[in-house]
């Protein structure tokens, strides 16, 4: 599903964010990418969603070599990848429905279909009753769930969660992790980028550990080793 072959990312003048990264994530896997701040976790995400391009190496997503992807291909790629961020990235002046529908409206989906899909994803994240609320009327855990719902609308092959529990208390954090696990059970490949030790150890899933831009560990049923 996701393949990184000898990928490096260099920032001028002398900063290697990633060095010679190699890994392969199969379809339907749940993988945690861990590391301290500056290890290169966010760089990996930015490369996957083509926000940046690798300096060296090759990146393949779902059989598509995106190493030198053209600008007009980026929207198509991003519709196949759902992304959830630590800072949620919701629009405060739009309701829950409108925030989620936004992702579908940008791709020409009909109004009827939008209503159907939004209803479905809100059911997955258990927020159907909050459909007409604004983000500032929701709890922080609910906001993150709306964010996850939006990431699911295009039925992505890959769901990337970049520090999704970073701003959450332990109880909400656990809820989000459980939700991600549930999504993975439906068949979606999930890439969780985190430095939450408890979540990683709880999941008992594959763990790729980064340090100073290199992979220092890649274990099935791994643990947080830093």
């Amino acid at each position, binding site marked *: 599903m996701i393949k990184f072959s000898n990928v490096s990312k260099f920032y001028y003048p002398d900063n290697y964010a990633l060095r010679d990264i190699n890994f392969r994530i199969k379809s339907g896997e749940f993988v945690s990418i861990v590391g301290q701040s500056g290890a290169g976790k966010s760089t990996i995400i930015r490369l996957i*969603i083509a926000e940046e391009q690798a300096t060296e190496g090759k990146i393949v997503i779902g059989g598509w070599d995106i190493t030198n992807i053209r*600008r*007009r291909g980026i*929207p*198509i*790629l*991003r*519709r196949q990848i759902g*992304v959830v961020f630590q800072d949620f*990235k919701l*629009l405060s*002046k739009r309701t829950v429905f409108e925030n989620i529908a*936004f*992702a579908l*409206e*940008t*791709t*020409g*989906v*009909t109004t009827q279909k939008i209503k159907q899909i939004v209803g479905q994803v809100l059911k997955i994240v258990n927020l159907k009753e909050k459909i007409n609320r604004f983000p500032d009327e929701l709890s922080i855990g609910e906001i993150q769930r709306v964010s996850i719902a*939006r990431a699911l609308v*295009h039925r992505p092959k890959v769901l990337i969660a970049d520090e999704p529990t970073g701003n959450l208390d332990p109880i909400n954090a656990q809820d989000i992790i459980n939700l991600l696990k549930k999504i993975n059970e439906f068949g979606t490949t999930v890439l969780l980028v985190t430095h939450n030790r408890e979540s990683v150890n709880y999941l008992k899933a594959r763990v790729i550990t980064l340090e100073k831009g290199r992979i220092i560990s890649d274990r099935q049923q791994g643990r947080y080793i830093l």
Partner: protein
Amino acid sequence: MFINFKRIIKFAGQDFLRNFWLSSITIIILIMAFFSISLLITLNIVLKQSISAIEKKVDISLYLEPNIDQEKINNLKNQLLVCPGIEEIKYISAEESLTEFRSEHQDKPLIIESLDELTNNPLGATLVIKAKSINDYFTILNYVNNLPEQELIQHKDYLQHKILIQQLNKISYHLVYFGLIISSIFILISILFVFNLIRLSIYTRRKEIEIMHLVGATDWFIRLPYLVEGLIHITIAWIISFLFFTLFWQWLFPYLNIFLEISNDLSATAFLQRYFGLIFGIEILGFFLLNILSSGVAVDKYLK
């Protein structure tokens, strides 16, 4: 495709209403810019027209000797028409000259009585020469002075106009030139101001642009709502400015006409109708283009 088009319009309208205060301020500033530019362009037109009106009043009159054959007068007229700078030559017969003279001096009984005493018409015919442009008068004067038929010409009425013509040339050139410079500076300031206003407006929506980009919207789908919203702002501002300007012009025009003699046969409304394209058409097109350019530059910054 049609769904996307509807959505773009919908997003633009929603953004306009959701950011109503920002939209209102933008519109107010655009109204001021439009009004100022309309006023500058109109005053430039008025200035050129009034200068042109004054120029048209300038002419050279050749007062001919009395009792000259019509054939000789026609011959003289034909020779004058060869001169390249001459627009037209008006022939006033001796009788018409006398009638005009009586009319001009009807409040001077002594002169009228003296005329009544005479048995013959003391006045000759007049040839009134109008030039194509104010700059041609000196060429025409030289040409007239070099004509072989000098004995036919009793008097050339140009000396008192000479200074006027020279001064008019100088003033006309400087006024128009100065007016253009001031207008250009002001228009440039307005353009820069509106350019930055649009960029600021888009800056406040950078989060939206970022999210649209992340969820898979194409670059054009992201750009177009801001473009359309800008067009909405500009259209509303233009309409309001046009209405204000029309009222203002209705009030100002009569006063300007008294001093500058813009036109005797045009009303304020007719004046604006005649120059509608020049005053209002070009400015709205210009601002549409400015909107496209500044929206494009501002949005692209957040797309990269």
